[in-house]
Each structure stands twice: as C-alpha cells, then as structure tokens.
C-alpha cells in the first residue's frame, strides 16, 4: 500500500477512508479536517497508505504530542517506509526528531544552541540580501512565480550556509528533499534513491571535515562533541539529513502559502505596511492559518485513546494544521487575523519534539515577506485556478504565479 495507484479511488466517508494524497485534499485539506473534527468521531481512521489515525481537535493533537512515551517517534513520516536503508546507509535517521528518550535528550541538546533566537539572528542580514537578489532577478518582468522563483530559493540557501555545504548545489538539495518528502511519499523508489543521495553526500562531507576540520563549522563542531556525548558518525549524518529535509520544504511552504494569501488580501498588505510592529504577531498568525507540517507518531503499546482502539505499531498523523483551525481553541479559525491576540498555535508541534528550527523558520518567513512587500507592495494571483499544491506531509503551493 505504498503507491498512488494502490491507494486511489473516491473517498466516500472521510471518517473511515480519508486519503491524504487525494488531489482535492492536497489542494485544500481544511474542509475535510472540519468535517472530521465536527463529526462524532474527531479522530478518524483510514486503511489507505498502510493505515493511520487522524486526530483533528487541538486538545487531542496536543495530548498525543505530549505523551511521547506512548506515541513514539520511531517513525515520523506520514506513510510507511517501503524499503529500509541497508548496508552502508543503514542506521541513519534524523535525530532528534526520530529519537525517543533517553537518547533524545542529548540528541536535541547538542543542536538547540544553533537554533536559539539569538543564534539565528546572525542570519537575518544575509537572508535579507538573498531575498533582495532573488527579487532583482524578476522585479522588472511584471510577473513571477512566488513559489518557485522566490519561496523555494530561500530556505535551501540559508540551510546550506548553516551546514557549510556548497550553496551552488541548492537545486540538487531541493530536488533530493522533494524526492524524500514530497514526490517520494507516493513513489517508494524515488524516496529511497533520494535518501541515499542525501546520505552519500553528507558521508563525503563528514570525511572532508575529518581530514580538514574547519573553524566555526557545524559539522566539525558536531564531530568534535564526543567528549560530552556519545556522538557517532551516524548521529552527525542524521542531524545533517534532518536539517536538509526538515529545513527546506517546510519553510518554503510557509513562505509560499503566506505570499499566496497576501496576493489575495490587499487589506493585509496595507495593514503590514502601516504597522511594522505587527510583524511578529502576523508571522505567528500566518503559521497558524497555513501550518505546513503534519508529522507522524507510532503507538508503542495497545491503548484506548478517546475511545479509539489503537494497537502497538499503529501510525498517527499529527494534524497540526487541523488543530490550528479548531474553533474550540481559536475564534474564527478560518480567518487570518494578523493581530490575533490569543494564538496558542502548534505549527511547530508541542512537547519534546517541538520543531528545533522554529526560530530560524520564523526569521526566514518574516524577512522573506518583509522584503517582498518592500519591493513589490502590490501584486495579485495571475491565475488563481492555476496554483498547484503539495500535501501529505508538507502543505504549500508549488506553482503560484503572481503579477505586479
């Protein structure tokens, strides 16, 4: 049950048969999420894609995220893996996102300082310069693809800079990440191929750093942390894998969705221009309304949760986008209210697996939108029906043409 053909077919009842790769759900998942959330059974189940549970209420999603001993992170992808990594590639995961306690503690502790708000602030000016140079490339054309010409180009370069790997390889990195997280989710061969591409690349990078250690270099520093924690090559490879896979598609999707929104809401563009102090709150609201990421958890042991008979090994889809539009938690949840006062969103998850890169993602999203609005204050969708979306694990526009 790992390909589109095997899982195709109309969905009659989303409560018992939802399909996260159904074209309509990929484009606009919110009506289905609402239907499930407001039904008698707000935690749906479907046998498609190897079977999964789908909690849609804020309270349930957060409770599951916080019960990490029962709802483990031994796999975090929304579909089962068709083929395990073998031989030289075996054992490379994506710590700390794929780690459970007790190792999770040091897996996470080692990378958190790199992503603290004061640590990521040093990337603000270079991100601003990058955004400006991208806009220089198309500002005189009167139109551009906000997704591929802009949003898609930003996080990959920021992450490559952080990892100390060649920024010129950005197109390759993007293609590998889409192979793992997007196209590969419904095509096991593509997924495996691109996981191997990523690991092969970082193995070479590790060998290079061992032969030629660098100053102020994340990979060198991680390799040299063995005095504090039992650091292995597998761990460092896993962290590099995570930063590339989790740091690119996700943030680019948030930037793309936000531009798609702003293209259709002149009043919000104006509000941001007139009230620059609003930016931090506005970023949180856009993250709430267009949360890009759905993670997964694996149930550790048979348990009844909110009346659902969950079995050891069952997959749960952590529908953060559904939780963030729950009317029990958010007033007028489908509306974007840039100065929303009460915004307890969980776009970055909750509990011990809170997105480690959240502060970097916020910075990139804010700077990308600020620079766009400075340079292109007025713009609209060229062809609203022509906007295409990716979904499943990461939701965001993939083609989003705008004119200005």
């Amino acid at each position, binding site marked *: 049950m790992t390909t589109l053909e095997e899982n195709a077919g109309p969905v009659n009842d989303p409560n018992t048969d939802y399909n996260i790769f159904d074209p309509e759900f990929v484009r606009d998942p919110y009506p289905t999420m609402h239907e499930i959330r407001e039904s008698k059974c707000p935690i749906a189940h479907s046998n498609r894609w190897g079977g999964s549970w789908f909690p849609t209420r804020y309270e349930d999603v957060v409770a599951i995220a916080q019960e990490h001993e029962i709802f483990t992170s031994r796999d975090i992808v929304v579909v089962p893996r068709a083929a395990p990594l073998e031989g030289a590639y075996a054992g490379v995961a994506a710590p700390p996102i794929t780690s459970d306690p007790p190792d999770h503690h040091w897996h996470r502790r080692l990378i958190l*300082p790199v992503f*603290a*708000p004061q640590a990521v602030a040093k990337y603000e000016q270079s991100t601003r310069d990058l955004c400006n140079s991208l806009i220089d490339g198309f500002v005189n054309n009167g139109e551009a693809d906000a997704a591929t010409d802009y949003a898609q180009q930003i996080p990959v370069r920021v992450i490559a800079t952080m990892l100390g790997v060649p920024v010129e390889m950005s197109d390759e990195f993007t293609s590998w990440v889409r192979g793992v997280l997007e196209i590969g989710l419904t095509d096991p061969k593509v997924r495996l191929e691109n996981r191997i591409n990523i690991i092969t690349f970082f193995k070479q990078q590790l060998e290079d750093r061992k032969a030629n250690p660098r100053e102020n270099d994340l990979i060198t520093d991680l390799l040299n942390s063995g005095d504090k924690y039992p650091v292995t090559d597998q761990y460092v490879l896993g962290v590099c894998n995570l930063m590339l896979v989790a740091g690119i598609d996700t943030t680019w999707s948030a930037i793309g969705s936000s531009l798609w929104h702003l293209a259709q809401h002149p009043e919000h563009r104006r509000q941001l221009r007139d009230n620059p102090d609003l930016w931090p709150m506005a970023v*949180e609201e856009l993250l709430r309304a267009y949360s890009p990421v759905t993670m997964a958890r694996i149930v550790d042991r048979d348990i009844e949760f909110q009346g659902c008979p969950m079995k050891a090994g069952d997959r749960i889809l952590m529908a953060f986008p559904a939780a963030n539009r729950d009317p029990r938690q958010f007033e007028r949840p489908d509306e974007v209210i840039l100065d929303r006062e*009460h915004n*307890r969103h969980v776009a970055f998850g909750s*509990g011990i697996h*809170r997105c480690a890169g*959240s502060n970097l993602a*916020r910075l990139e999203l804010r700077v990308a939108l600020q620079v766009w609005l400075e340079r292109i204050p007025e713009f609209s969708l060229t062809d609203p029906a022509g906007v295409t979306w990716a979904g499943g694990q990461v939701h965001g526009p993939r083609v989003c043409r705008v004119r200005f």
Partner: protein
Amino acid sequence: MRVRVDEASCQGQQMCSIAAPEVFGSDDLGHATVLITGDLPAELHAKARRAQANCPEDAIILEE
C-alpha cells in the same frame, strides 16, 4: 504580578517572548527566561497574560 517559567514544561516555543519581549527572553538552548524577576509594572500585565495564554506547554506561571 510576578512571572515564572516552569522549566520542566518549557520546550522553547518562544511564544512568550513574542507576546511579551519585555518580560521573557531566551537562554542558550532557546528556552524561556524571565527578564523581570520582581513585580511587573502594570503596563506589562496584559502582555504577560497573553504570553501565558499563548504558551502551548502551559509553562508560564503568573502570581498575582
């Protein structure tokens, strides 16, 4: 009003420092710190309440 952070619950969401940057900061791991340990000036009470309300981990404690 005084504020505290429950360190065992804080996961570094940073929702508090976004809601009330005058009151909350970040340690080197990105977890919340309290910048004003004594009584909060009245003009910051509303922001501190918003910080508490917006924390998904329930890690902000207000003592009034």
